[in-house]
């Protein structure tokens, strides 16, 4: 093709040229990690564009190209955005005054090191607290985790901070990793967009929804507002916010009542057939029936033989046995008494009577016929729920999730292509898991470590031959937890950050609580449920807070002042490492500038969405004096060692009274120089992942530099990967939970089954032993509007809030979106400044009026920084951040802490507010 060559055209031609094209991605916590091409010249990034390097995986399923979004396509703008950090800074004025002086790296690290050494000497290493992050990629996270591990500091569990933990999935499955690869949605016949907004939050792969629809599937969007994702649907179900459990349970009621349930699925996969003592609603256990019997051996009723029989623990396959799904039987206990026993299915059937479509409709506002039609359709079709991470942020999100799982169970809808729940699942990057265990670099050492792990797995397996590899893997992780750094942050917030009073407020809590929140905490701690995990302990004052690539002052439920007024005064030093001046950096004493993606190499944590490794190369050198976290923590290790020697703090005891040393910190960090550079680290992770079989041969650093990405080849040997329970085939989409359904591999729960009855006394007391609906507590007070939230289209959390190009794609300022009716009745016009308030707090924000919003609902998408609001009072001012007390339960089968897993998490969605024109 030719186009007339004039000078005018040549200017545009020149603009579209470059010296170098490298691969890059953004390592954001958006889960997508799209491979991009980064075009640069003269050491400057010019622009980027999706690399579109994915081949078709499965015949007849659309490929994943191009995988992109507007944030990714404007990432390079942020390298030089006005909020970018370029030099180490020291606070000059008061904390939060925004008055800084530039200092040298040496000075900054020296000051940080002094604070750490003093804290260790004065209060012990657990007074040095890190907030874990999921932003920034593994090379942002690994350095501080390694450093914290070496000095014995505390790292606050990321999932307890960000709350992407779907507790209801964990309660049901013993894990929450039920996400298939995103292309699996193309196999779905009934797509339920439910509690999520993929057209905002899953931009790179939302096309699988529209394409599944063209392929013949039906798409239904269930949301309180006529959400932007509803546009992709065939039908929209306008549900009252936070009543999803009632809606789901009602569909279950219809399915059971009309005899549409997938009984084989329920028999093999769930606890439906397990027997419960009717009078106590406790599972019948071997310990009840035979003397010395196991606590975790359960029973069912063999219909043919008309006897009680042990439900197999090692397989889900009932083989020739047909366990009863209804009826009442009697069992003789070890003391000779007889009791009535019923299968869990009976209890559920009774529970579901409370949710006939007519009764449920009164709660959730959905027409009863719609409930019936959808229930019938799901019982006939491969159905998938696209769920995201909204439910975990609701106080009773666990109940919603359990009800949704029940709905999938009765329709037999997981473990097969096109079914299940699209949330999050980790893939195996085993090299990363092995990293901390290695004493030397190289493959020989990898093999040694892997043999050790395999030996430990075998030994644990021998103790319980019926446990699956996945369960043994969890057991292994469990043993490492107490000696690790991670701590569920709820306890930190309770003891050190002033949440006690808030969480004790009965009027914001569930009315069925019999005692105060504090009582439950004390009880749980006294019973040792969280033994060794409450760090720093109530009597250890935190001294140093280290925050790398995360932003608690924006995110903190309960308002930023909660931390600033309660925690900050205790802290000798607040140190922030970030690429941009975040709300948290604004409150720091020392701010250290980090290199951004495109200025460094990085790998993203491995998940199943694209089922590919996310790699980002260094296109240009870091701006200003920015450094990578590996460089920062390597230098800090040296500095701490140096200052410790000067102050004579070479030896000390850690939180477990184990001796630690600081005089070898620097060489321990780099493993005697083996990991001087992050290239060496990435190279090691990749080669070890190939060795462990989770990456194919072309997963080397060299190859990623040439090809951008590669698809995982296996799930590896560790529990996080294994929890996906899926076959990995080169030419098939990945289907979560396949092993459970196809191969009858048990679930990692107390009963080894997808478990709907939790016979823990606290759950019984709350009447939540079975799924049910409960109204959202009146969090924030008795106000007429329900504030929901969710992630915006415009930024991933706050990361792109300062990107001037992206600001131009929306109103460029914080918004509260009101329904036309609520705006009218309050005399509020679009663009007015309004106050959002409740008993917790208030803030000022501009109103936007949209007819898509349900009357009674207010939407404020999150991501706005507090300093974008007057007096720096942002949306978290009205979110009390209540924690559901039941999640303090632990040491009950699968309800026990694992990093990024089961723990108490704060709620922030569905708080009650009023709005008024200012």
């Amino acid at each position, binding site marked *: *093709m030719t*186009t*007339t060559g004039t000078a*005018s055209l040549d*200017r*545009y*031609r020149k603009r579209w040229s470059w010296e170098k094209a490298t691969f890059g991605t953004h390592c954001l916590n958006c889960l997508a990690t799209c491979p991009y*091409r980064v075009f640069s010249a003269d050491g400057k990034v010019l*622009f980027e*564009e*999706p690399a579109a390097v994915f081949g*078709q995986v499965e015949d007849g399923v*659309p490929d994943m*190209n*191009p995988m*992109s*979004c507007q944030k990714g*396509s*404007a990432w390079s*703008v942020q390298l030089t955005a*006005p909020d970018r950090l370029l030099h180490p800074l020291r606070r000059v*004025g*008061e904390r939060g*005054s*925004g*008055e*800084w002086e530039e200092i040298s790296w040496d000075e900054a690290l020296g000051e940080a090191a002094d604070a750490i050494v003093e804290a260790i000497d004065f209060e012990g290493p657990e007074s040095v607290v890190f907030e874990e992050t999921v932003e920034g990629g593994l090379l942002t996270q690994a350095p501080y985790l390694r450093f914290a591990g070496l000095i014995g500091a505390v790292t606050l569990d990321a999932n307890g901070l960000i709350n992407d933990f779907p507790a209801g999935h964990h309660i049901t499955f013993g894990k929450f990793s039920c996400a298939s690869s995103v292309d699996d949605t193309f196999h779905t016949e009934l797509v339920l967009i439910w509690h999520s907004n993929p057209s905002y939050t899953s*931009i*790179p*792969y*939302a*096309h699988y929804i529209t*394409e599944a*629809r*063209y392929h*013949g599937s039906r798409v239904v969007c269930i949301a309180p507002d*006529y959400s*932007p994702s509803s*546009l992709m649907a065939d*039908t*929209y179900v*306008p549900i009252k916010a936070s009543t999803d459990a009632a809606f789901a349970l009602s569909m279950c009621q219809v399915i059971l009542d009309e005899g549409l349930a997938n009984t084989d699925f329920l028999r093999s996969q769930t606890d439906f057939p397990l027997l419960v003592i009717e009078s106590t609603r406790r599972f019948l256990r071997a310990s009840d029936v035979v003397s010395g019997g196991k606590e975790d051996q359960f029973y069912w009723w063999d219909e043919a033989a008309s006897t009680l029989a042990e439900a197999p623990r090692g397989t889900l396959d009932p083989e020739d046995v047909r366990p009863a799904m209804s009826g009442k039987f009697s069992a003789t206990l070890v003391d000779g008494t007889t009791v009535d026993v019923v299968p869990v299915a009976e209890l559920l059937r009774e529970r579901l009577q409370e949710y006939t479509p007519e009764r449920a409709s009164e709660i959730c*506002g959905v*027409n009863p016929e*719609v409930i019936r039609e959808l229930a019938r359709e799901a019982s006939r079709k491969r159905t998938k729920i696209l769920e995201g991470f909204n439910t975990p942020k609701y106080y009773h999100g666990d109940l919603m999730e359990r009800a949704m799982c029940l709905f999938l169970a009765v329709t037999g809808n997981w473990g097969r292509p096109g079914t299940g729940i699209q949330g999050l699942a980790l893939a195996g990057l085993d090299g990363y898991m092995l990293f901390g265990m290695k004493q030397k670099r190289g493959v020989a050492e990898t093999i040694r470590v892997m043999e050790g792990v395999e030996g430990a797995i075998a030994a644990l397996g021998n103790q319980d031959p019926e446990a699956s590899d996945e369960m043994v893997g969890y057991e292994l992780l469990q043993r490492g937890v107490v000696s690790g750094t991670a701590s569920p942050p709820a306890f930190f917030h309770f003891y050190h950050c002033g949440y006690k009073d808030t969480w004790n407020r009965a009027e914001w809590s569930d009315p069925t609580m019999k005692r105060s929140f504090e009582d439950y905490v004390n009880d749980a701690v006294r019973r040792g449920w969280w033994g060794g995990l409450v760090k720093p302990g109530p009597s250890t004052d935190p001294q140093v807070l280290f925050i790398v690539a995360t932003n608690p002052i924006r995110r903190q439920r309960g308002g930023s002042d909660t931390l600033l007024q309660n925690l900050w005064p205790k802290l000798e030093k607040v140190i922030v490492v970030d690429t941009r*001046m975040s709300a948290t950096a604004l409150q720091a004493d020392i701010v250290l500038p980090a290199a951004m993606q495109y200025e460094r190499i990085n790998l993203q944590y491995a998940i199943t969405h694209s089922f590919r490794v996310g790699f980002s190369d260094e296109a240009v050198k870091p701006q200003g004096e920015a450094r990578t976290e590996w460089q920062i923590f390597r230098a800090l290790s040296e500095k701490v060692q140096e200052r410790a020697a000067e102050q004579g703090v070479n030896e000390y005891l850690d939180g477990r009274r184990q001796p630690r040393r600081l005089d070898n910190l620097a060489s321990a960090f780099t493993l005697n120089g083996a990991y001087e550079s992050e290239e060496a680290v990435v190279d090691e992770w990749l080669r070890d992942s190939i060795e462990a079989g989770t990456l194919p041969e072309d997963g080397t650093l060299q190859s990623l530099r040439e090809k951008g990405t590669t698809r995982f080849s296996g799930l590896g040997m560790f529990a996080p990967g294994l929890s996906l329970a899926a076959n990995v085939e080169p030419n098939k989409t990945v289907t979560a939970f396949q092993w459970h359904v196809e191969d009858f591999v048990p679930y990692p729960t107390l009963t080894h089954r997808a478990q709907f009855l939790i016979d823990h006394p606290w759950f019984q007391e709350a009447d939540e032993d079975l799924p049910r609906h409960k109204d959202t507590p009146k969090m924030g007070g008795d106000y007429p509007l329900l504030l929901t939230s969710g992630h915006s*289209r415009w930024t991933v959390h706050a990361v792109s809030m*300062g990107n001037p*190009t992206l*600001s*131009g794609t*929306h*109103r460029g300022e914080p918004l509260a979106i009101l*329904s036309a*009716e609520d705006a009218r009745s309050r005399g509020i016009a679009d663009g007015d400044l309004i106050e959002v308030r409740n008993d917790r707090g208030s803030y000022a924000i501009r109103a936007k*009026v949209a*007819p*898509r*919003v349900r009357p009674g609902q207010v939407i404020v998408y999150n991501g706005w920084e507090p*300093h974008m609001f007057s007096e720096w009072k942002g949306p978290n001012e009205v979110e009390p951040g209540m924690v559901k007390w039941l999640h303090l339960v632990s040491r009950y089968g699968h309800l026990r802490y694992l990093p990024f897993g089961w723990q108490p998490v704060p709620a922030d969605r569905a708080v009650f507010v009023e709005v008024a024109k200012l």
Partner: protein
Amino acid sequence: MGTITASKRQLAWVFDLNKCIGCQTCSVACKMLWTQDEGTEHQWWMTVNTQPGQGTPKGWETMGGGYKDGKQTPGKLPTPEEFGGGWDYNYQEVLRGGKGRDVHLEKTAGSKTWGMNWDEDEGAGEFPNSYYFYLPRLCNHCTQPGCVEACPNDALYKDPENGLVLRNEDLCKGAQMCARACPYKKIYFNPARKVSQQCIGCFPRIEQGVAPACVRQCPGRAAWIGFLDDAHGPVAKLVNQWKVALPLHPEFETKPNVYYIPPLSPAPLNADGSWNENGDRIPASYLESLFGQPVHGAVDTLKTEMAKRRSGQPSELMDLLVMYKWEEALGHLRRDPAEIVWS
């Protein structure tokens, strides 16, 4: 006045409004490449707006321009305020100014009342039967481009090989007659250089066999590019064979070359909340006001083929819209830009 010389072939865009999720990746992709310099801050050659709405520039649909019965009709020159945007903020003051909470981030430049995507996700109707959809817009590279004809300096022309409407910026004297004449209001003014500017059809990419950025970067896989006379290409099939892709506001008579597959949207709800599977959420009259009478046939075809596919029958149209292989979207412009080595 400029003269329109017909091109040998015509490149055309198709956007599927059922696949477009309003993500603005196309807008951003375009901006990153072409409007980064001084004088272009406010320019968005590619825009995506929520319909019904006022869009960009505000109220463009009623600003006139184009032709009526073959004669040019007068058009209004949109004001900078109607384009809006162009924001700057007091970052320095807030982040580094030492003033603490006495100041917060605020716009220090640009419009306070409008921007490229100001009425995002508003739409019309009454909950729960509200309705809206996204409309990505770029210069239509019209076959009867009012802008070309209106230019007193002969700066605009249709590229003879591919039909793109291009400007010789060295001839442009900033008269902005083009911007008045364009009924789609897709022409911006560069105050720094005193020239008008609009979408260049990514011609530097097209010359290299690479698809335009707005198409190649679209994550919704909602966009296609190709020659209209390439009968085997998806663009021609969707426009000419299936007649499901329609020009926007054909009554403007500029014969635009950007085509849209009309939005279906979910069925509306009856007053009792039950589904009204046969009703229209988006009023048919509204769609007609955008795409003319043929929209009804296009919607019917889409619904018929969808129903066929649902009942297990094959449908070539559905296969086209699914886009099994992403490269189909790129027509003959399939080259990976990273392959290019500039000497």
